[in-house]
């Protein structure tokens, strides 16, 4: 590979003279500043490389050095709470502007970790089994695992003590092992078995958990035009969902949003552990003005990090905002390498690239025997809000849940603007069974009933717009009113009101039951002859404010409100 030189520079795409000695996906360093890049095409005498940095000044004749292997990242303690670029270079230790060519190490070499070995000399260990444990953050125990490809007898292992990531802590089958290991991001980390999804991932967002739930280890996409609320929804999930580790990949999006995430996550406490939310979060930032090619790597880097924590037995969630920007990076690359475009300029490999990405989600039995998961949630930003465009339509085929955001709802400031018409959740039947087995046999029926009510109301609404609400039959007017109650009292959820930011499953259930109960009672009253005007005059505003005037855990408070309100409704009947 020595002797390879640059022959052509076309933006981030660079051609090299000699392909010999290089392998596809190999990492190379190009030019005097050693700009990192990845081999993306190989011919006998020519290699094409995508460079992860601005290539200004790079010229034919510049030298190239190979790393001798694919793009790998360093995985180990110290990822949590950190901010990294698309190839896992730490951003905290860099100045206000990102100069190119910096090759800093992912993990701090100075930090001390209290390592407690869990195996002894002479034990037989295999890839992925546990060597020992260290407390990476107050919330997360970091298990140091035998790297993939290593197995054998433990020849020696350090005693409990403080160690750096660079220290050798054990020797297994002739390999010296440290606290960290490297992994090629494009390769899924092996597991012992893939398991079907079973338990819900509780997001704390009512419209999702009640109507369009996602299971741990499953996948969901959130398509929506600009400003419809994708980022806010994903950030809310990152803050409040009940996973152990969150990997948040800001892929081709705004720098200010990342500043916001950093600032807020640092200040907020995880309601389950009482620790700072940043302590369970790894941030990967490749903002829209950072080099486009590193966007391509960033989503894989994110999944690799999540798989690493999964292999320790944790439930991890990868959030990618936005997968469309990643797909655009693929498109730009394809067009610069002269690949024939398929739809709208995207390469024909788009759908398989999307499939491969989402397929890295899963609930698994790890090599170490634990049950753990990686859930993948991706934003999709369709041009012109057109949901038939290639990235959206392919993504829909590969994900289990689609949370489609509706421009009209967002315009009416109905947030989260999740459309009940265009969204779907393929895990819902399985999760209804899980709920039934875990104390809530009515879960599935409530979901069905709610969706039906919303669709009925849409139909009635369109009639009302023609004839005026006053000319509708009483039962349909009631449908409209209850649907509005459902929207305002249950589905809408503010990201900024403290009581409303997240809701526990018990409170979610209490709120929904309250609305459905009001509907049932009012229907009965109507049928029993109570005039609709009497019902119209009945004040339902406590139902609307219950969501934010109680605490996020306030199921009992909501039930209290329900008891009073239903009591008042029943007395209507008495006074008829």
């Amino acid at each position, binding site marked *: 590979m020595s002797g390879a030189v640059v022959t*052509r520079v076309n933006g981030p795409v660079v051609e090299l003279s000699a392909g010999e000695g290089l392998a596809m996906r190999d990492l190379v360093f190009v030019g005097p500043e050693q700009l990192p890049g990845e081999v993306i095409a190989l011919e006998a005498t020519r290699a094409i490389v995508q460079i992860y940095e601005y290539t200004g000044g790079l010229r*034919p004749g510049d030298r190239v050095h190979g790393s001798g292997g694919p793009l790998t990242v360093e995985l180990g303690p110290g990822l949590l709470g950190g901010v990294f670029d698309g190839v896992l270079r730490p*951003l905290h230790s860099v100045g206000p*502007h990102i100069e190119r060519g910096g090759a800093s190490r992912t993990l701090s070499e100075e930090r001390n970790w209290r390592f407690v070995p869990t195996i002894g000399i002479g034990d037989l260990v295999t890839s992925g089994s546990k060597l020992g444990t260290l407390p990476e953050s107050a919330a997360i125990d970091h298990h140091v695992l035998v790297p993939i490809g290593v197995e054998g007898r433990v020849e020696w292992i350090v005693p409990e003590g403080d160690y750096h990531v660079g220290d050798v802590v054990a020797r297994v089958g002739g390999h010296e092992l440290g606290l960290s290991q490297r992994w090629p991001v494009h390769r899924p980390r092996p597991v012992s078995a893939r398991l079907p999804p079973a338990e819900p991932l509780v997001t704390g967002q009512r419209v999702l958990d009640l109507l369009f739930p996602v299971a741990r280890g499953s996948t969901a996409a959130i398509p929506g035009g600009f400003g419809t609320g994708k980022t806010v929804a994903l950030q809310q999930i990152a803050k409040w969902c009940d996973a152990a580790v969150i990997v948040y990949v800001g892929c*081709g999006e*705004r720098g200010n949003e*990342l*500043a916001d995430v950093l600032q807020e996550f640092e200040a907020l406490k995880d309601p389950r552990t009482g620790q700072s939310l940043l302590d369970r979060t790894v941030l990967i930032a490749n903002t829209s003005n950072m080099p486009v090619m590193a966007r391509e790597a960033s989503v894989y880097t994110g999944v690799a990090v999540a798989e690493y924590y999964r292999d320790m037995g944790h439930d991890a969630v990868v959030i990618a905002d936005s997968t469309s920007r990643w797909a655009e990076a693929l498109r730009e690359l394809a067009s610069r390498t002269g690949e024939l475009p398929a739809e709208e300029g995207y390469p024909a490999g788009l759908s398989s690239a999307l499939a491969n990405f989402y397929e890295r989600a899963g609930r698994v039995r790890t090599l170490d025997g634990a049950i753990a998961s990686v859930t993948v949630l991706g934003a999709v930003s369709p041009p012109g809000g057109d949901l038939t465009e290639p990235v959206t339509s392919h993504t829909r085929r590969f994900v289990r849940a689609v949370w489609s955001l509706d421009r009209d709802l967002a315009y009416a400031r109905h947030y989260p603007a999740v459309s009940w018409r265009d969204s779907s959740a393929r895990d819902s039947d399985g999760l209804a069974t899980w709920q039934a087995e875990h104390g809530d046999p009515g879960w599935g029926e409530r979901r069905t009933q709610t969706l039906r009510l919303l669709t009925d109301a849409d139909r009635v609404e369109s009639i009302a717009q023609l004839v005026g609400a006053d000319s509708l039959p009483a039962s349909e007017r009631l449908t409209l009113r209850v649907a509005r109650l459902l929207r305002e009292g249950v589905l809408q959820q503010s990201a900024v009101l403290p009581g409303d930011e997240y809701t526990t499953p018990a409170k979610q259930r209490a709120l929904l039951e309250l609305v459905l109960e009001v509907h049932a009672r009012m229907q009965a009253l109507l049928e029993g002859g109570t005039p609709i005007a009497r019902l119209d005059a009945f004040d339902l505003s406590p139902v609307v404010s219950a969501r934010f005037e109680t605490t996020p855990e306030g199921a009992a408070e909501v039930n209290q409100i329900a008891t009073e309100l239903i009591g008042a409704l029943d007395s209507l009947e008495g006074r008829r």
Partner: protein
Amino acid sequence: MSSQAPIEYRAIGSIRGPLIVVQDVDGVGWDEVAEIRLSTGELRHGTVLDVDRDLAVVEVLEGTAGMRLDSARVAFSGSPMQVPVGEGWLGRACNGRGEPIDGGPPITGGERRPVAGTPINPAQRAAPNEAILTGVSAIDGLATLVRGQKLPVFSVGGLPHLELAAQIAAQAHVAGEPFAIVFAALGLPHADVHSVRSVLERRAQLGDLALFINTADDPVVERIVTPRVALTVAEHLAFERGRHVLVVIADLTNYCEAVRQVSAARGEIPSRRGYPGYLYSDLASLLERAGRIKGLPGSLTQLPVLTMPAGDITHPVPDVTGYITEGQLVLSPELYARGISPPLDALGSLSRLMRHGAGPGLTREDHLEISAQLYGIAARARQAADLAEVVGEDALSDADRSYLRARTTFEREFLTQSFGEARSVEQTLDRAWAVASLLAPEELSMISPPTLEARYRPASRDGAPDPTR
């Protein structure tokens, strides 16, 4: 530009659109600046778009008209394009490449910076906060501009967006801290440039305005460089000189068309409506230069103005912009036709960062509540108006009718404002209350009881209160 005399190349293989292919080059780097000397002695400038062994494709900023294959000499500078930075730009008017058009001497400075900029490290960004006040009620009141934000104006040909942009550039201020305006005109007709300049005259004299002007008849490729030059100057003023800088760019649609034209000349595969697939990344490389940086006093805020072709918000230019910016201010032809100016469509407009710049301790304690309420009123009034179209206004409920009345006052007393009038936040919010006070207090659900107590001033029986009282 370089210290040693650079090599001059004479072999131009082809000329197509703004691109020339220079042959037999040696050691030329990507994105390097080139100087092209024509046989007439005229000097043009270019940048290297692609370099393949001994061929360099150069994009000529001033265009290739009049160039011949055999008579131009091309020299490469050895580095990507740079401009001098410093306070010397303030009070000056320049063309789109930064050459003075005000009769003054060229702007030189001790320091030069690459116009491509260097991305701000997201981990070192400070989240935007605090407002830039524009003196325009529709903006300050409803969609407050926050320091470090990028907030575009989406307009349509024929609406007064340029007047609005000039008014904002003339009036914008931050209380008591160093401030500057950088105004980049892209592809504007001479008449428009003239009127913008006359509105900004005073600001230029005060020395806190830098003006970059690429007119409609200036070279198209130059239009791609102009915002980069302007932003490089602005970044220096913001992050190295501690000023709060507001960059106003008009018209971004002309910029995008220039990008499309160059892309076509390069024979690239188009994506939507002929625009290249990298339009998003290209625009982001401009707009993401807004922000604040931890530990540094200044800020860079951007207010790009664009016209939506055929008024279509799903057109790639507004669409891609909306995906990058933090909200949008939408102007409505329908409102303008009814005589409302500036014709801000309240429901379509949003400043996503508003709560970081307005409210208690920032503008006024009731600001967020009253602005949310005005949005609520606008939404409800729209429903009432839709209903009125079907059943007639007489059939509306009393509440619906009061919303229609409030909307009229909202449009006439709150939105309507002349281009020479600067309103304080106090005045703006008092006008907002005059609108809200037309409704019964129980309709004002977005306002807390103490705020309502303090600010609600119901109308007297015989008409609306005088908002200027």
